[in-house]
Structure formats: C-alpha cells, structure tokens
C-alpha cells in the first residue's frame, strides 16, 4: 500500500485547477512511475494526490496547419515513440522516448511528468532543449508559455507555481524543419537504466557547412543544459573531423559535471567530448552527409 491520504481525479482541467487552488498541498500525479516509487521508498509521505489520468485528450499529439507540433503532457513515451507525427518530424524525440526505462514503464510514464519532476537525467529533456521546445502551462489566471530553457530552476526544481498544470509541449516548425539529429543515452545497461550522460544534437547543414547546431546535455550539470559556446563555434564551420572534434571540446566548457557514484567528473567530461562528436557525426550522416571517421 502507498501512503496516500487522498486522491482527486478531476475530469477537466478547470476542475483540476480549482482543486489545486483550494488545496495547495495536492501533488499532481501523471503516470506515477516516479512518484509511486518515492512513496514506496518513504521519501514522500501522507500524499494528497491529484491525478490527471481522467482528463480526456491530454495525451494528444497534433501537427497544426503551420507545422507546429503539440504534445499533450499526458502522452506516454510509448505513445510518443509510436506516433507517426513524432517519427516524421521529431525523430530524435522518438529516439529519446524509446530509451526511457523499459516497455512497461514507457506505457505509463508521461512526457509531462518527466519534465515536471525536474530530473536532470530525464531522457526527454535534452532533446526538447535541442528542438527549442516551449511549455504551455495553465493556471487559474490563464495560460502562459515558457521556453523549456527557462523552466529548469535547479536540481529537481522547475518553474511551475502552485495551482499550475503543464498541458502541452510545443515545438515550432523553425525548431525542427530541415534538421537532422541524434540522441545518445550513455548508461551501464541498454535498458531499465538511468543515463550517466544524455547527449542530444539537432543540426542544419548548408553546402558542407553547419548553419545551425544545437547541442543539449542531460546529467552534465545540475539541470539539463544547452552548450552555447560549442553552438556558437560550430555555426558556419565546415563539416569536418577537426571541427566536430573541436565542438566536442567546447561542449565540455558548458558542463558542470561532478563526481557521483554513477560516474566521476573526469569520466563524464571525457564522455561529453566523445559523445558530442559521435552524436554530431551520426546527425550529419542522417542528414545525408558523409561519414567523417571515428573518434
């Protein structure tokens, strides 16, 4: 049994927001694959929950007329991985989604939960950063939109106020059109493991040069990050072995890797340098470019 004192199951967002504003102690539960384990482990006690599962349509994935893609916060990772919209337009997100946990977890865990619990190891986070995703958040006073870059406030902390609900992840056409990319999850096991490092690369190339490179890292700093210096360096550079190696070195500068039981700082920095190169190399190949060698 879980240490639950109350669970609300509203069937509309309006009711959910009302319940949240009347009772600020309510904790939002989505797929439950994180929260229920915290309860099992005793790190969350006497939980008063608000479940979003009964609200219809919150798992919808849509492509709007202008090419904007909206992903409902309750979309599961299995749903994202199987979505034809995601596979056609956001293949790197599909790749990240299928790297989460195992199949049973992916059938329950949601992208909204993954973002809102603020885990630096969230497999979706790095890729959403690389696609310049925005988050649509609904509160009692209306909706607001926040770039995901500004959403992470610290380890396990996000900029979600009490009585606010993340409803959609939004990716604009400018974020994904004419791009190719790659997500590399580095972990001890191929399945059912948490990333030691997550690297997501989305890039555009024109006439043998990088015109836009976006690099995001999970588990390289207290929150998922973009590698600004490396991206600036890459812009306009010729696509070559040397440039890509250099981009990997620049990416380390953005990181604030630390020693933990999962990996040492030195090892993590080594991983960043090598895996950024490899993700870029793969992104270039997927974008129709040539194989430029191994590192």
């Amino acid at each position, binding site marked *: *049994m*879980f*240490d*639950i*004192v*109350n*669970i609300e*199951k509203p069937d509309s967002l309006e009711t959910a927001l009302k319940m949240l504003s009347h009772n600020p102690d309510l904790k939002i539960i989505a797929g*439950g*694959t994180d929260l*229920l*384990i915290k309860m*099992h*482990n005793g790190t969350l006690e006497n939980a008063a929950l608000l*479940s979003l*599962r009964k609200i219809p349509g919150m798992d919808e994935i849509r492509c709007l007329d202008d090419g904007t893609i909206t992903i409902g916060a309750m979309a599961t990772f*299995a749903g994202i991985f199987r979505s034809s919209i995601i596979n056609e337009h956001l293949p790197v997100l599909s790749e990240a989604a*299928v790297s989460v*946990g*195992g*199949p*049973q*977890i992916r*059938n*329950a865990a949601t992208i909204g939960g993954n973002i809102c619990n603020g885990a630096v190891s969230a497999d979706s986070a790095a890729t959403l950063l690389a696609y310049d995703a925005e988050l649509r958040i609904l509160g009692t006073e209306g909706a607001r939109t926040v770039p995901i870059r500004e959403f992470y406030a610290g380890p396990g902390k996000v900029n979600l106020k009490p009585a606010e609900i993340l409803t959609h992840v939004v990716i604009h056409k400018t974020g994904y059109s004419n791009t190719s990319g790659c997500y590399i999850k580095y972990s001890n096991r*191929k*399945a*059912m493991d948490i990333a030691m490092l997550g690297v997501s690369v989305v890039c555009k190339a024109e006439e043998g040069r990088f015109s836009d490179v976006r690099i995001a890292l999970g588990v390289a700093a207290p929150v998922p990050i973009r590698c600004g210096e490396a991206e600036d360096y890459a812009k306009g550079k010729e696509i070559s072995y040397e440039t890509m190696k250099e981009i990997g070195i620049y990416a380390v500068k953005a990181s604030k890797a630390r020693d933990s039981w999962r990996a040492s700082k030195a090892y993590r920095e080594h991983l960043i340098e090598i895996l950024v190169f490899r993700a870029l190399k793969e992104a270039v190949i997927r974008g129709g470019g040539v194989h430029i060698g191994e590192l």
Partner: protein
Amino acid sequence: MENYENISMEVNGKAYSIEVDIRESLLEVLRNRLQFTGVKQGCSVGECGACTVLIDGLPVDSCIYLAVWADGKKITTIEGVSKDGELSKVQQAFVDEGAVQCGFCTPGLVLTATSLTDSGREYSDEEIKREISGHLCRCTGYNKIFNAVKKVLDDKQH
C-alpha cells in the same frame, strides 16, 4: 484513516465491481482481493516486470499502477491467456523452447509477448530484445525466452 472507492473493471473478460482502498496498487487488488496469484510481486518499484499485466492490451507494471486508475479498464492476467483449457500460441512456444525454469518471470513475459503478437506489428531481433527488456529472469534463461518470443512472432508473420 479509511478511504475506499468503488471501481468497475474487466479482468480476463469478466466484469468486476469492487471497493478498493485508494492506497492499493492494482497488483495488490488482483492478487489479494481477486486471487489472481499468477500476477507476481517482485521488486515493487517497476524494475523486474514480474507483476506485468495488460491494461487495455498494453503491458504495464501493476505494482506501480494505482487500483483506482483501473476503473473502466480491461485487464488481462496470465489466468486469462489460455482459452478452453488450451495453451495460447505464446504459452506453447514457451513450453516448446524450454523458456520456463523457476517460472517467476514467466507470467509477465508471456503477457508482454502476447501484446507483441496481438499488435500485428513486425519486430526485428533487436526490437524483440528491446520489447522484453522490462523483465528480469534470474535463471539466466534469456536466450530461450527470446527464441520462444521470436518463434511465435515468426509463425504469426508467415
């Protein structure tokens, strides 16, 4: 503090309307209240896959799924896989390939394999391995389990 709710769900094709404690997992309700003891309790944290059941056809760890969420859902446990005393094709493949040793992981794996065959999709060897990766087998029988799943999927595809 007592807090109960009525839920209606279908388990193995039969309708149930029962009162559950809001603190209970689906695993606890299926095993302790409805006596579907083919659902195994392993790690209790969604890592081992022993408690896997199909919810509306998809494999889910029932240990980290609240019983109140099962309201209105169709659940399949291992008890619902054979029909009229006949083993299902998946079960028969597990027998034929010797994919069962101690048997603790078997109900979950058979259910995941059943969802794969029911999906109508084709799976490469790598995809089969990925799709059964949420189950731990401590008798180290993964090769035989993989062979059984592959066999039943191949039979289906030809």
